[in-house]
């Protein structure tokens, strides 16, 4: 650690290294005890923010994600409005304390890109044409980051959109697979993502069989890539079950208690 060294900016790009081989042991067990096709422990909760029109909270490993949704409401500034549909304004934002070295609150280029691809992952699921000239605001706050936050953000945002009562074709659920320690593995955590060989985040609409986000960086053969995509979709399907439970547990219990 050195004082006050002026560093060039670095926006989450991958830097592979020789340490990758240590990520998975001979028995196929990962640093945190998981098997290659195992998700991290996941917890989801819907309706956690009193002020927002819809909200959800998710923990996936050490990731802690909070999403608030406002709208549909009159688009502002007006020039962003679309005559024939709603627009989604999406902000992916990391708390300064969410990562090891304090992050400046100003949006990085990575934040700008992720806000865009997350928005494009959610749009296919929403009946935007029901609310022309309006805006739906999706605020994704990464309270703690441990790899895979864009996917976790999408999974959480879809719950918050549903909680806001916005009509949707399907839920969206997202999960990454990647290559670490030479093996294709599901749901990379931060260390695996940084040291590993590749990461493939996928967002999926389970009932429509539709991939709404797909990115990749690293180095994969076409076969490895196909394996990773299938594994990620498998992860999505498991997360989808938890999503449905989270919605049920809010709306069923609420029904009993309040309505």
């Amino acid at each position, binding site marked *: *650690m050195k004082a006050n060294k002026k560093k060039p900016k670095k926006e989450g790009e991958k830097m592979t290294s020789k340490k990758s081989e240590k990520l998975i042991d001979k028995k196929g067990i990962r640093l945190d005890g998981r098997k290659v096709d195992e998700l991290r422990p996941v917890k989801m909760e819907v309706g956690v*923010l009193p*002020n927002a029109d819809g909200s959800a909270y998710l923990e996936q490993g050490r990731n802690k994600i*909070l*999403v608030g949704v406002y709208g549909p409401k009159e688009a502002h500034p007006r020039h962003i409005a679309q005559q024939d549909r709603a627009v989604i304004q999406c902000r992916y*934002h990391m708390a300064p*304390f969410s990562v090891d070295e304090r992050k400046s*609150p100003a949006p990085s280029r990575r934040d700008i890109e992720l806000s865009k691809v997350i928005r494009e992952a959610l749009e296919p699921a929403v009946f935007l044409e029901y609310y022309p000239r309006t805006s739906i605001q999706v605020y994704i*706050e990464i*309270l703690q980051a441990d790899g895979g936050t864009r996917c976790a953000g999408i999974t959480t945002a879809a719950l918050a959109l549903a909680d806001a009562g916005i009509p949707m074709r399907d839920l969206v659920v997202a999960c990454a697979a990647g290559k670490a320690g030479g093996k294709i593995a599901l749901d990379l955590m931060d260390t695996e993502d940084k040291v590993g060989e590749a990461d493939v985040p996928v967002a999926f609409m389970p009932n429509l069989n539709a991939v709404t986000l797909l990115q990749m960086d690293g180095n994969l053969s076409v076969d490895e890539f196909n394996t990773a995509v299938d594994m990620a979709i498998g992860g999505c399907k498991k997360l989808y079950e938890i999503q449905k439970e989270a919605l049920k547990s809010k709306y069923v219990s609420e029904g009993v208690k309040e309505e």
Partner: protein
Amino acid sequence: MTSTIVVNVKKKRITELLAGGKRTDGRGVNDYREIQIESGVIERAEGSARVRLGKTEIIVGVKIGTGTPFPDTPDTGVLTVNAELVPLASPSFEPGPPGEDAVELARVVDRGIRESKAIDLEKLCVESGKLVFVVFVDVYVLNHDGNLIDASAMAALAALVNTKMFKYTVEEGEIVKKPGYTPLPMLDYPIAVTFAKIGNKLILDTGLDEEQVMDARLTITMNKDGNICAIQKGGGSGYFTREEISEATKIAVEKTAELRKVVVKS
């Protein structure tokens, strides 16, 4: 934005109730809503705490970095307080750089910590004039239901009390980590209480409805000895009489002592 007419109706109702010593949610004028404090909620931060004050919810994270000291205080660490009113917390918050409300919130919390000398900043000097620790206190408002200042100050204090620093030695001007952690060196425990004036009444711990109709607010921050370390009047186009200031100060002595027990034991 709530329309003027609605605000006026609300103001009439709240003022009438207060004339009889009552508040819309049944609390007494000096009662706080339920306080829930949870420490260590962000494991990757050196310190953190979540405070819920009724439906108001704040997370404060503390990060420790390094830097050069100010030239005029070469032997003391640096404290930096920042506040973000993130837009999921309220329909009135917008994304973008901090506005005047966020800046004021950060600076009021900052003054409480700084002027009470809560952190022993002299212990955070590594090499005089060259290398010190920097304590970043980031206030993150997650749901705004009134009284952000008191809740933020509580969360900041709880997060500082929760903060752990790695042990280290210095070799050739560089910090070398050793195993183990020590708590952040603390000398005091400042608590802020904010009075709102509605009509000619002073009340504590305003909800959002009350803030919409208040004339002004007055924040008094006191240290563990019951001395005042920071004051801030704000919150609208109203004023306080000299007598109201004295009254608030008296109540603050008791109230800050009471709240300190809640926060520090947490």
